[in-house]
């Protein structure tokens, strides 16, 4: 983002151009998304590439995700703990924090990590391949880089996001439990029983669904930016930067949409 704003020389003139440019980019990403979805079902499936990428993304994401999950779960629990205590509903602290972690925090944390650690690496990798003309060479050899390179990466990002999401949920809930019970002196029984009172299985499903969608977006944006670097190696640096920023923006936007839809469609338990 910083690189973009710094290039803006005249404040007035390029606004319209920027807007159309942004729309065009969005259209391109959308077109590529459709392409990726279509090609996902095209044989032969690039299993080797998929496993490699999956392993790679997982290995760079697990540690940061776990490390972020504990304080994240803790902060939410602490915050909600004091809030529920103020309104005299401390028995519901457990349920509230678990819901917040599973539905919101965990998918977001997961994808921030997948996009930040995995996506940036994907983007840099594809970017440098593009400027070395490897992608051109691949297309000339009659092989679609979408099918061959992008699909395995996007699928890997989705898979890792889904699994990491589970891990982050568990770690986050454990962290919340620890802080609620040990630090704030809550009762373990109240924490556990409140969560069966308010939480339901569909909360877990929507969290997982979000993680999968975010993983798709992270992989897609990273690949899209990676395949379209401007200029040489400097351009690759720029697109890595942009891909992370764009993914984050998209993430929060899509999260808002999914959350609204979910809360409208699925009635909260006990309401």
């Amino acid at each position, binding site marked *: 983002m910083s690189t973009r704003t710094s290039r803006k020389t005249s404040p007035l003139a390029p606004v319209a151009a920027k807007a159309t440019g942004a729309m065009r980019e969005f259209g391109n990403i959308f077109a590529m998304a459709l392409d990726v979805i279509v090609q996902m079902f095209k044989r032969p499936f690039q299993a080797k590439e998929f496993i490699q990428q999956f392993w790679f993304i997982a290995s760079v994401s697990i540690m940061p995700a776990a490390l972020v999950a504990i304080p994240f779960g803790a902060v939410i629990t602490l915050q909600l703990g004091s809030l529920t205590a103020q309104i005299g509903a401390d028995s519901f602290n457990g349920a509230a924090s678990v819901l917040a972690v599973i539905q919101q925090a965990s998918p977001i944390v997961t994808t921030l990590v997948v996009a930040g650690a995995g996506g940036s690496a994907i983007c840099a990798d594809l970017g440098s391949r593009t400027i070395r003309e490897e992608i*051109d060479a691949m297309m*000339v*050899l*009659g092989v679609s880089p979408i099918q061959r390179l992008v699909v395995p990466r996007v699928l890997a990002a989705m898979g890792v996001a889904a699994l990491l999401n589970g891990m982050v949920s568990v770690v986050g809930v454990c962290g919340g439990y620890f802080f609620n019970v040990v630090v704030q002196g809550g009762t373990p029984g109240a924490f556990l029983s409140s969560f069966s009172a308010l939480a339901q299985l569909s909360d877990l499903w929507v969290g997982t669904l979000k993680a999968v969608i975010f993983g798709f977006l992270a992989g897609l944006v990273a690949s899209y930016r990676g395949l379209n670097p401007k200029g040489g190696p400097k351009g690759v640096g720029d697109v890595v930067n942009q891909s992370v920023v764009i993914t984050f923006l998209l993430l929060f936007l899509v999260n808002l949409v999914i959350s609204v839809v979910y809360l409208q469609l699925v009635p909260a338990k006990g309401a």
Partner: protein
Amino acid sequence: MGVEVAVEGLSKSFGKQAIWRDVTLTLPSGEVSVLLGPSGTGKSVFLKCLIGLLKPEKGRVVINGVDLCSCPERDLYEIRKLFGVLFQDGALFGSMNIFDNVAFPLREHTRKSEKEVRDIVMSKIDMVGMLGAEGKLPGEISGGMRKRAGLARALVLDPQIILCDEPDSGLDPVRTAYLSQLLIDLNAQIDATILIVTHNINVARTVPDNLGMLFRKELVMFGPREVLLTSEEPVVEQFLNGRRIGPIGMSEEKDQAQMAQEQAHLDAGHSDGSLEEDMRGVVPQLEPTPGLPPRDAARRRRQRVMQILHTLPESAQHGILASLSRDDYDRYQEWRRRTTGMAMPSGPGTTGTATATREQTRVSQELPTRPAAGAQPTQQIPRPVAQSRPPAPQQPQQSPPMRPRPRPWRREEGDQ
């Protein structure tokens, strides 16, 4: 059998920067063509447009009746299977070793067993002289080796159209000579249509059937190699001779002041960077290695060129006629006599009954002149633009003794 590539009115620009406009040319099927041009004139961009990697704004590239610029992506991938492309930097896959790089197209597009793949790949690696390096990663070999490995990969599927972006850059003269031979041999064997982009004058002089040049956003010319090699066009002359004097500057355009200054320096005795000898002129074309079949494309081209010979510039006609074998020369005269006899039945002084005189006058009118009797050992054209052409041959029958040069490099049995 190669495939014809027809380019019609192609224009390409990046944003406001026009790269070239209205390029029209045809790569005749199975023939070898070379595209010359100063650095940065868009030769690589042209190649990428030919394979549909870049979309030109205007024009068409037609292969097998399909326009690459407007056909859907799926057809594009099909058409591309006809191509073997050597990129300027080799464009090897950095994460695979040389063997896997060369094997990649085979594994993607054929159902060959791993052993067959191995045999083919090793033969191609051997062909470009890289045996022993097949286990290395592209980052671990030299630039010239990357080029050669890229060529091996481009050739592994026996493509019908081969595009080479500067196969010689980064290679030593000896390897370049081998490479030229390799391409010609390949052409003789599989009759592929070949387009080579190069800066190497030797390659341009000896390898192609057709020669073209890009300069100042335009295709200066494209046609039988003799046309460009004997051209009086200042750009062509400057480029072929590698001189500083002329329209090509360090940057694309050169202004009057700089031109005048350079001319002054030259007049004062400062070298303009070229060698003494004129690099223009038609030199013998490279032949396939003895033992290989003669190039069918050479025969087809000869027929094609002879039919348009009278439309070519005169110096090109000299070059072409001088490079004909005696039989071909006689046959051409015969053909001209017949066709012109039919086409122009009432030319001045042609109604005479004495066929012998008619033939003679006809020939001396129609045929371009050959170098003066027994004159030059090669077909070099005189460097200062010859105002007065050399005298016409008195008698076509004399042509054998006047043949400017015996042609030991050509085995005559291959001729038509």
